Every structure is written in C-alpha cells, then in structure tokens.
C-alpha cells in the first residue's frame, strides 16, 4: 500500500505564507502570555497544595466552594472559597489547589480534608482511604528550585543539541533546527496559555520530548539535504531542499501519523494524570512536523543565501 505518491511540491516558495502562519500563532500565544502575565504555573513551580478527592456521586464545584468558606484551623476559621477548584477526571472527583499561606502549619491539609468529609458525610466513600485521590504539597523553596531546574534543563538540552548538529552537519543547520524548536515550544506554550492549561513538571518533560521529536523530523530532512548536496553539486540550493523534503515527505507523514495515533490514544484513555501531558505531545507532534518542513528548511535556505551573498 502506498498513500503518498511521488510529490514535487515547491515548499520553499510557500515559505512566505508559512512564516505568516507561524508568526500569527506565536504572536497570539505571546499576546495571551502577556495578558495573563506569564504562563500559568502549577504548584510544582509556585509552591502550594493540590488536593483531589473522590465523592460517591457527582459533585458541583459550587457546593465545594460554599463548604470551604469556613474551614476551622487551629482555632482560626479561614475562607478557602476563592481558591481554584475544578473537576478531576470525572464529575465525582474534585481537585482543589490551595495557594501557599504563611504559617499554614502541618495540620492545614488535614483540616481541609477533614472539613470536606464532614461537610458531605453521605457522599464520602465508605472506605475512607478511597476518599483521597492525591495530595501534592510543594514548599515554595522546592518550587523555586524546580523552576530553576526546568529552565536549566530546556536551556542545556538546546545547547547540547545545537552542538551535536553543528558537529554532524553545519552550523546553519543547527541554527535552523534551534529556530524550529523554539518555534515549537513557543507555540505549544502559547496554546497552553490560551487554553488556560497549567504548566507542571510533566509538561516540561513533554516539552523536552517535543524538542527531541521535532528534531528527529528535522534531521531526517537535513540528512537528505546533506546527501543531495553531495550527489548533485550543480543544483540550486532551493531546488535541493525542495527535492529533499519531497523525498522524505512520505516517511515524515507516516511517522507523524503513527506517533500522533499513540499520543492521541494516551490523551483519550490515559487518565487524568497524564491527560495534559498527552495533549502537549499531540500539539507538539503536529507543530513539530510542520516546523521541520516549513520553518527549519526555509531558514537554512535563508541563512545559506545570506552567507553566500556576503
């Protein structure tokens, strides 16, 4: 079977349009990031507490809010009704994110959970250990450290990759690849911001995987360009790049399809915990495929012509 027949698409002549599309996507993302004052960070980076509990019947968020407007804690009564709350997986599960507060004490989380279970005595699972789905508590210090680590991780991954491609190919190939990668991460970040999705530790892992994946695609094309330059030195640079993309297009699309398939399955069936992770991967696969054809390759054409006219 063969879906994609031999193609002769002039990809490079479409680059103006593709740059416009990318620019639009990036600007929309940056606009959203600026409006919302940066990406929405999870407790991994900001510190705080996430509590997810499970009731026996569907639970309205508004009920939880009104229950949490007076939580007794250590002789005080605190109002948590304005904290962020949402369903977690299903209608019966509720996740509450509590911002870190000073002097919250060790009993804080336990008080909230006890208060929740006494507020809805009929809706708490019989086996009390089934009530708590998850509790994550990250101190502000750890949060700041994890942020630093995440930035370091993405930064050092980019530098190492730049180095590797410079050695294996040419420096302009490395530049083209890095531009495409930054493009992918920026757009994914933008989409997360527009959709109001949280950036957590696993999402950073997803970003790095996107980086690796998109690079994979890009390098397959670069490899072909390298081969074609060697075998036909007289052809123009643009023609060579176009030819290389056309030669590898069926592989690019098939691989993207199979990868997309598995992350799509993960997104649909993988459960709440990795739902957003799979979403980031899905976006990454699409953007990564697009960018290796329409961003990385045109950029090396641009960089190459810039180098030779000087």
């Amino acid at each position, binding site marked *: 079977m063969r879906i994609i027949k031999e193609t002769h698409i002039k990809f490079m002549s479409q680059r103006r349009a593709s740059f416009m599309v990318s620019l639009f996507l990036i600007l929309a993302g940056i606009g959203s990031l600026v409006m919302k004052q940066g990406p929405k960070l999870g407790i991994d980076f900001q510190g705080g507490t996430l509590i997810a509990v*499970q009731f026996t019947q569907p639970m309205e968020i508004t009920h939880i809010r009104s229950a949490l407007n007076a939580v007794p804690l250590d002789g005080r009564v605190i109002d948590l009704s304005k904290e962020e709350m949402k369903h977690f997986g299903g209608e019966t599960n509720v996740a509450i994110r509590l911002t870190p507060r000073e002097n919250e004490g060790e009993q804080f989380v336990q008080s909230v959970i006890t208060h929740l279970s006494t507020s809805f005595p009929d809706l708490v699972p019989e086996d009390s250990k089934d009530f708590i789905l998850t509790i994550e508590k990250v101190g502000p210090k750890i949060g700041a450290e994890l942020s630093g680590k995440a930035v370091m991780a993405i930064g050092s991954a980019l530098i190492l990759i730049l180095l590797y491609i410079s050695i294996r190919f040419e420096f302009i190939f490395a530049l083209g690849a890095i531009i495409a990668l930054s493009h992918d991460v920026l757009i994914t970040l933008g989409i997360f911001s527009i959709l109001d999705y949280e950036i957590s530790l696993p999402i950073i892992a997803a970003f790095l995987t996107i980086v690796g994946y998109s690079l*994979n695609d890009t390098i397959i094309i670069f490899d*072909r360009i390298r081969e074609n330059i060697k075998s036909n030195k007289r052809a123009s640079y643009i023609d060579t790049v176009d030819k290389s993309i056309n030669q590898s297009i069926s592989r690019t699309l098939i691989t993207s399809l199979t990868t997309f398939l598995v992350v799509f399955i993960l997104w649909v069936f993988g459960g709440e915990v990795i739902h957003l992770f799979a979403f980031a991967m899905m976006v990454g696969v699409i953007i990564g495929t697009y960018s290796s054809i329409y961003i990385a390759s045109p950029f090396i054409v641009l960089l190459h012509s810039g180098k030779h006219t000087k």
Partner: protein
Amino acid sequence: MEILENKIIRQGLDLKGGMYIVLEVDLPALITNLALNIDHPFENAVEELSEQVNAPDADFFVLFKDAVTKHNLRLPRYYHEYGANVDDIVDRLKDESDDAINRVLEILRNRVDQFGVSEPTIQKQGSSRIIVELAGIQDPERARALLQSTALLEFYLVKDGELTNSLNLKIDKLLKGKEELQELVSGEEDMGDDTSSVNTESILSEDKTIPVSELFGDEGSEDDTSSAVVDQRLFEDRPFSSLLRNLGGDMGVPEKNVYAVKKILSLEDVRAQLESGNGQLFFGNDAQTIIGPDGVEEKIIPLYHLEDAPDLTGGVIEEAREQIGSQAGSTAGQPIVLLDMNNDGAKQWSRITGANVGKRIAIVLDQKVHMAPFIREKIINGGTQIEGFADINEAKDIAIVLRAGALPVPVNIIEERIVGPSLGSDSVRQGTFSVIVGLSLVLLFMLIYYRAAGSIADLALIWNLLLVLAVLASLKATLTLPGIAALILTVGMSIDANVIIFERIREELRKGKTPRAAIDAGYSRAITAIVDANITTVIAALVLFQFGTGPIKGFATVLFWGILISMFTAIFVTRTIFNSFTKGKQLKTLSI
C-alpha cells in the same frame, strides 16, 4: 503486561499508591541547639538565617558565615568547644550537621521499620534533605506524624497555682497598655457586626466575636475570619485572662481562642515576662469537651505553666510500649504508653520524684503536655506511663518514636506527594489500556501499509518492548505513569526507524534496483539519518534524567532505553530477518 508490571518491574508510587516526602533538617535550629551563651544578636542572626535558607539552592553554611560577619558575632563565644577561629568552628558545625542528618536517617529508618511498611525507601539527598517513599500508606496523617515528630520527651515540674495567677495578672497588665488593644476596644462596635466573622457559640450574653486579625493588625490575611470568644467587659479589663477558662484547676483555652492566645504568647514583652519568672506555658495534647452553662459543647485545650528547664529528658528511655490501661486503674480502657528508664534515668527519676512529693510533674512530648499528675511518692524503678492519646494507634506510634529515639534536630516537610490507592489503580488500568490500544493500532497500520515487511517491523517492535521491559527490570528501575507514557512514545518512535528504512527501500526499488540491492542500499543510506535523529532525542532524555526528579526520571529512563534499543532492533533485528529471507533466493519482488 499487567503481570509483567506486577511481578518483574517495580511500580512507582503513582501506580501502586503511596507517599513521597522530602524532609529538610532544620539547620538553624541545630546550630542554636549547639550554641552556648545565646544572646540577642545571635538570635537575630539565626532568625534572619531561617528566612534566607528558604532561597532556592541556598548553602546554609555560606549564609551562616555571611551572617556572622554581618552581625559581628564572635563565634568562639558561642562555640568555644569547637575552636578559636571562625573557619574551624564552621567546619566543626558542618561535621555536626552531617552527623545529625545521618542520625536522623538512622532513626527514621528505625521508626519506619517498626511501623511496618513494605520496602520503604529512605535516602539522603544533598546535605540536608531526606527523601522518604512509603508504598501503600493509608493514613497520611499518621505517617507524617511518625516521620516528623522530634520525639523529644521532657519532664517539667508544674508551677504552683498562685504563681500562675500572678503571671496572668502581669500579662493582663502588659497587654492593657498595648496600643493594638486600645484600638481594638475603640473599634469594637464595628467589628461586632462584621459579617465575615463567624458566629461562634457565646458563653455570656455580652460575648462578642472579635476577628483576631483585627486584634493584632495582621497583614495579608483577608481570608482569616478567625474570631475569639470573649466577654467584652472582661476583655477590656483583663485581655489575657478573659480568653481563658477554668479547667478543673488548670487553665484551659477554648478552641476558638487558641490562635489569639498563641499570638499573645508570641509577643516580645509577654515572652520576656515569662522568662523573668523562669517559666513557660505549654498546651496540652488533647482537648476536653465541656458542656457550657447554656448546653453548648465546647472544646477546651488545657494550658500549663511549667518550669523553664526540664528535670529529665527522654534520652534515658530504654523501652516504650503501648497498652490499654488495666481494668482497675484510673486509665481503664484508655491507651497508654509504658516507659522503662535506664539505670541513670531511674536514679534521677527517683531523686526528682522523691524531692517533689505532692507537686505535679508534666510529661511533655514535642512541646505538648500529655499529662501532669501529682507525685504521690518516690518512684524507684524508673517506670512511668504516659496518658492522653486519642487512640491506640497514636499510643503505638508514640511508643515507636520513643523507642527509636529523639531526632537530634527538628525536620520540616518541604515536599509531599500522596497518591491514593484508587487513583493509582486507575492509572495502571488506563495506562495499560492505552499501551495495548496504541500498540495494536500501530501494529495493524504497519501490517496493512508494508505487508510482509510490516510484519517484520511489528516483530521488531514487540521484541523492542520486551527488551525495554527486561532492561528496566534488570536495572531495578521503577515504572511510573510517565514511564508508561514514555513506553507508548517509544512505540511511536521506534516504528519510525523502520519507516525510514522501508521508504528508502521502496525508493531504491523504484529506481529499478533488485530487491536484494534495494534492501542493502536502503539500510546503508537510512542508517545515518536514524542515528542522527535518535541521538538528539537521547540528548533530551539524558538532560531530563539529569535535572528531573521522581516521575520525570522514570520518564527519562524509559525514553533513553527505549530509543537505544529501538535503534538496535530496527536496524539489526529487521536486517537479520530480511537477510534470512532473501539469502540464497533470487527474489523478483519484495512485499513492502
């Protein structure tokens, strides 16, 4: 798959449920404990330090040296045993802190072992942190207490009632002059009908609920709607005493007032007042429920006025065991902990009890008074018992921590992740399901699209997955949920190598090469592309492994091995199969 995960590969806490806790040793507390002749400059410096160590990646001893210079502290004054110059002393303090954390590690291991958790992980991270992983913990609160309680057992003599009364009067007097309280009195009418304050049970008709935040001008706590229950006129006259109740001869603090009382006790001049009387105030461990005159139940927590220095500490405890009080005694049916002391302890205990017959002695565990019985007679054998536990589990845990010994330095929980058993099993089910569905779809696609060659790739893919699982098992790596995600990703990416090769073979076939030559050309041309493309992903995986914690590491491990093995299976395994099929035959067509 499930069998594999259960039997061979260790599951991460996010799959089987459990608790992950990062504890940090309280170094400022440690150097304070070690210091002698503590004065105000030293206290200020340490207080500042406690703030600074919260900065990310802060090195405590570097900060400590800076603080010493900044505050002009003469270190030998506080640590004369450790040397005469700053560097020597700081080096010794470092040794002490290493030693302390190792002891903490040892004690925590001991406690967890006795608690009975299967395969706990307790390890040091960096110089001041300990990571504890407990699988299948069902009661996080209990586990938390077990790990975090310092288990410092102390015996203090209780000050006599008259001293306590005069202390209360003095504190009242101190507070009466306070400007904050003056403001409170004048602004009281408005606060009385503050809608945000919670309606509390009133004891007297004139009772007002007064938001504590107003009382002390708290900043940034708009959501604190705490209120104390006081009699308004009494409060004006005796601000401190009015917050207290009589609890069978002891002072008691209604639960609603605890926060206000704690605030008052933390005021500078109140502390000075306590110090000048060589006393201190400690809360009791459990509340008593009293039914007030109007029939409303009220929880009241006892407050004790104790000497400021303990007469005996828990280091002398040799054996501790929990028990239900015997039928005959006053503690019938209640959980108690029986203590046995060593020779030295027994001697001291007999001296103390002998010298103070008729007085009361408070048994204090981690700054909470468990009981304060009268000493009826001299106790010679070193035996004693503690009461005042909520249930037998608490008594059992306290016995464990007392046996394992007190932590040389307090520890704080700085990160905590708990996954309940139901979420864990959901994740396993959903993860396994996703792997199976994703895998089947890819296998099916390859079979349809590349026919015979596709079946070879499918074989290689399955072989690849088995190898990855085998490697994980032999590395004793834990499979986490992100690990399963990486496994699925490996499926997607490892098929890629075969797609690259097959597409290349097809291309060579179109050029008119024989199947044999096309296969050779396809493999040799595709190999550089595959290696270059995969190495970059390996770089990403390595970086993740380096910087990641817990779940991310799991993801990186699987991704790393997945890619390496997929390169091997896609290139060598499929090649071998191809070769064995084409060997010696003159193939005219290739099913690809």
